[in-house]
């Protein structure tokens, strides 16, 4: 089914946002198609959900819902937060030492 939990979440977020009318499914298919057809994608389709996440990020930026710089900054913040969180504790964004 889903290779990893983040893939399931990305999938569900997309379905949810579409149901709430943020974009049409054709807009989504177009965004996904662009990512899937980028040079260097895996021949076996194993990076399919990477494409999915890239398409969702791109569409949110194109729609003015999210800012590309903000997404990247938050991505780094979550990675720092994960590394700063002791094993066994829930990872929270507030654990980022730079926040």
């Amino acid at each position, binding site marked *: *089914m*889903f290779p*990893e*939990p*983040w*893939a*399931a*979440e*990305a*999938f*569900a*977020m997309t*379905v*949810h*946002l*579409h*149901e*709430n009318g*943020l974009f049409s*499914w*054709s807009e*989504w*298919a*177009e965004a*996904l*198609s662009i990512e*899937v057809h980028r040079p260097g*994608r895996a*021949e*076996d*389709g*194993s990076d*399919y*959900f*990477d494409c999915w*996440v890239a398409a*969702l*990020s791109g569409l*949110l930026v194109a729609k003015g*819902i*999210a800012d590309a710089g*903000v*997404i*990247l900054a*938050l*991505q*780094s*913040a*979550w*990675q720092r937060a*994960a*590394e700063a*969180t*002791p*094993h*066994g504790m*829930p*990872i929270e*964004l507030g654990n980022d030492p730079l926040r």
Partner: protein
Amino acid sequence: MHDDHDHHHHDHHGHDHHHDNRYSDMQARVRALETVLSEKGLIDPGAIDAIVEAYETKIGPRNGAHVVAKAWTDPDFADWLKRDATAAIASLGYTGRQGEHMRALFNTPETHNLVVCTLCSCYPWSVLGLPPVWYKAPAYRSRAVIDPRGVLAEFGVTLPEEKKIRVWDSTAELRYLVIPERPEGTEGLAEEELAGLVSRDAMIGSAIAGAAS
């Protein structure tokens, strides 16, 4: 949300120090998108969980197999499926979330149908769940159109030369469900038993019903 907290293997001596958590770029990117969308009030975590759970437990090829078995046993339903697959399938409780239309492709002794999405990976999720990895791979997406007979042979399906193969390219608006031919010798079987003969691949057209896939 999922508990995707990283669980690293403990070392052989069971010492409990230096067990860092790490987020891959993709994990962190998804978290970042969730953060942005939550802050704007655009996602409801409960709804996200419900969607994930539905796709992991309720929505899958058994839905499609139910449609096929009903078409095999109920001629009125089969007619409806031919005329208006979207409505016929919805009558069984399987509705697409993307507002897409469904079309049922009936395999016959003369014609075999095979479904692909050359654009990306459009797929009839409501009846088949999530697509298999090979369906999303560039190799299948390009070769299914150019050499369907060769692709089918690789799936272990060898069709008589005189049998025509039609390849259908899915779109965001139109998805296809292959209705395989009912296997011979199944006249006495009930709908539920028949559904057990219908594999996911048979409903994509990369297998035939009642045969090991």
